[in-house]
């Protein structure tokens, strides 16, 4: 991994770290406006984080190291993914690591750490959240990997860098049925993984309807800040991955400062647009019952499978 590679990785890490709360703020703002409210402003998530960092850290009695470590692992896995994925430029992707299977597995590892923390608290809500999160996680996996298969067949590699460069080389591929189907399938998978509507309602106050929130009910102060920040970053990463796979334009091919700056700008625009669109769509959606989500995921799986078939039979 070269010096340029390391600098690019750092740039990406900083961009996602600083930008993801802003993305969250924008999405909340869009929602607020569509609901006829004024909204707390784009910077509000950052204010929340700053305040949480200043607050007193608490350790509930009876919890183990797992509870303490989970936020750190969640952040670390997300950062590791951010460092290797070619969000900004394909030139500096490390030889090993930008593999799509590795990326998916790393993101799963973070979610698993948080689920273990939820079980570790020993409260009913923690266990409930963990159980639901893991169930959804298990059912999303086939869609993700089969979608990866569909994207990697025409390229002959599961390496993100190769996929992006080859898509840039012939942009027509983006409107082949394989790509369209895969885009829809992975879009659904992203929604499920990031816990947005209709799979999970991130702004619910009812414990019994929670999935992700229920696992973190025991966290307070800096730990909670880490969890919130990491969740925002995961959202950014998933949206960014989707954009990188299906709209790779603007990703630089070199590590020159100008190219990188442009890449950062385009990345920000793409992710913001996706986030705003997602938030806008959420206004029209109601949360699915937990036991209706398998239908959604089965559907996305079928689309992914059809994408593979299409990529084989229509090249």
């Amino acid at each position, binding site marked *: 991994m070269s010096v340029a590679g390391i600098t690019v990785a750092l740039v990406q890490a900083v961009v996602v770290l600083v930008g993801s709360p802003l993305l969250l703020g924008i999405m909340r703002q869009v929602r607020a406006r569509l609901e006829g409210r004024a909204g707390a402003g784009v910077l509000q998530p950052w204010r929340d984080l700053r305040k949480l*960092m*200043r*607050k*007193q*850290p*608490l*350790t*509930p*009695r*009876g919890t183990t190291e797992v509870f303490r470590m989970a*936020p*750190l*692992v969640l952040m*670390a896995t997300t*950062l*590791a993914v951010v460092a290797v994925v070619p969000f900004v430029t394909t030139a500096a992707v*490390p*030889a*090993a*690591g930008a*593999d799509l*299977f*590795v990326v998916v*597995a*790393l993101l799963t*590892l973070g979610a*698993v750490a948080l689920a*273990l923390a939820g*079980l*570790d*608290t*020993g*409260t009913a809500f*923690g*266990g409930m959240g*963990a*159980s*639901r999160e*893991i*169930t959804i*996680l*298990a059912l999303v*996996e086939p869609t993700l*990997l*089969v979608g*990866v*298969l569909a994207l990697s*067949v025409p390229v*002959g590699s*599961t390496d993100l860098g*190769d996929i992006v460069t080859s898509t840039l080389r012939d942009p027509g591929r983006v409107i082949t049925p394989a790509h369209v189907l895969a885009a829809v399938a992975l879009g659904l998978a992203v929604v499920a993984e990031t816990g947005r509507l209709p799979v999970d309602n991130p702004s619910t106050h009812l414990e019994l309807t929670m999935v992700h929130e229920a696992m973190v009910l*025991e966290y307070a*102060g*800096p730990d909670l800040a880490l969890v919130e920040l990491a969740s925002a970053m995961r959202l950014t990463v998933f949206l960014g991955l989707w954009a990188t796979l299906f709209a790779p334009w603007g990703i630089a091919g070199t590590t020159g400062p100008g190219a990188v700056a442009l890449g950062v700008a385009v990345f920000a625009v793409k992710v913001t647009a996706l986030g705003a669109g997602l938030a806008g769509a959420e206004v029209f959606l109601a949360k699915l019952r*937990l*036991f209706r989500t*398998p239908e959604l995921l089965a559907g996305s799986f079928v689309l992914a499978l059809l994408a*593979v*078939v299409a990529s*084989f039979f229509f090249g």
Partner: protein
Amino acid sequence: MNAVGAGLGVALLLALAAAVAAPLAPRTARPAVAGAGTALCGAAAVLAGVAALAGQRLTVELPGVLPLTGLTITVDALGGLFLAVVGAVAVATGIYAIGYGGPDGRGVQAALPLFVASMLLVPVAGNVGGFLLCWELMALTSLLLVAAEHRRRDEVASAARWYAVMTHVGFVAILIGLVVLAGHAVDDSFPALRSAGAQLEPATAGLVFVLTLVGFASKAGIVPLHAWLPRAHPEAPSHVSALMSAAMVTLGVYGIVRVGFDLLGGGTPWWWVLVLLLGAVSAVYGILQAAIATDLKALLACSTTENMGIVLVGVGAAGMFAGAGNLLLAGLALTAALLHVGNHSAFKTLLFLAAGSVLHATGTRDLDALGGLRAGMPVTTAAFGLGALSASALPLGAAFVSEWLLLQALVHGLAVGGVATAIVMPLAVATVALTAGLAVAAFVKAFGVGFLARPRSAAAARAHESPPTMLAGMAVAGVACAALALAPALVLPAVGRVGGALFGAADPLAAGLLVVRLQGFTGSLSPLLVAGAVLVGTAAVALGARLLAARSRDRTAVRLWDCGAGPLSARMEYTATSFAQPLQRVFDDVVRPEQDVDVTHHRESQYLVDAVRYRLRVPDRLEHGLYRPVLTAVAAWGRLGARLATGSIHLYLGYGFVAVCGLMVLLVAIR
């Protein structure tokens, strides 16, 4: 006499010595003698296996040992691999057995080293007679060990019965298959079989393959022949469960590879489609049972079925690729499968030993009654955590590397064999993916519910750490897991050579210590870098959080948030059953749980509920569907036979006499 011969000979001698010494030793010393002997024997076997993997060969003819055929010992790379795997498992379990003790009857303690010795002989037997002898010896000794505690618990007896019947049905299938094959060869040595298998007409070859596949699959716990596995493994003493689940089961895979690729020379594609489909079904079904199981050791046993299924997916894919003529990809798929065999042995040993130590400390295997073990037994908790991480195919875990290789093989194989692979591979990928997801669920449940949170029973609250020898046994397995997870390059080149050699292809991958790179395709993985990134990231985040957090306020312990009401009791915690409930409900059509709710009303008024009892059973559907009819039929035959057997000795002798005369008449007739 080279290193292989020396290692193997020493191993067998040590095993025999231990088997003789253990019964003679005083009752208290028996486990120590048997355990130490087993461990040393395993160590010697590992040396032999490594030497064989390094390229040494050995062929010994022992005509006197066995009538008619004699016993031929032939050690090649494939055999060496399984020799090393079995030996390594034996080392860990042997050390563990010293402290675990378990049932200390003479026979049982003598059987342990014999079991290991027979398992070591199976992959090196070089002729049909010897192979079958070792296979049967392995079955018998393991049966002895499974039945060890039959006096204490009835389930043990029933489990042993199931195991005995199924393993012998499998043995008969293998016997017929290999004898049919040997019938076409000049003698029963494997080289002769090899040359005979080459010019066998497809129908016969297919028959031989299917027969042996049935036998070996029943040993490997492949659906639908898995029924004995979730019975026998939980009921056996834990170190025996580890030996069976991590070592013996893998020999089924050895048999399939040896017969299918080596002796029959690849055969026709439909064989391998069959193998792949069997593997896929086993993987999903096994892990689904594991995900909803609440018995810790039953969960591990089901996950064995799952892992063997994944291995068979790899083997089947290798066969399909080889049939399509892409030997490089075939080598890659088989390498992935064999590496997964090794990984599975490592983490399954660790998991079963940890589960044994839990059983030892709390006396229960029921996850719903465990929890909060972190406080009482930190080392066991850490060990199980490591094993669970390795088993759930997540980065930093051992299984991740092999499943990554397998997925790479499947992805690149999509277009290799035309429509056939184009239809099978996506399903295979989906299967592996679903299996990985459900494995995460199963092991998060096992670790999170079993070891974290608060104890759910008095026994779990009183749990204490196990004696040092048991911890040492776990440590050995743990080190193996960590090594395989972080530096697969230690073993991958050797395994790759085995995979490539079977198809006469080049090494499918180049494994540097840092990066594992596929040959012929772009694709590389660096477990070390991934682990490093995660660990460095964790440290960095922790540091950053410390710097940013307010220094004025330091971390304080508070009571759990119980919504302001009284203290949370253990009954309010999520149990394994409740954790698995969503999955069980999603897969309702597959697992068909039987649940009944009975509400007893209050004496005064039926509107006041006195108590609600909810019972949930998840029976094995396949078993109900397939085995019940067979069992009832067998029972009917038994009643029929009872009519012949009236108990009069003369009648029995009469049967024999009539039979002999009839035979002679027949001879006269056909002459």
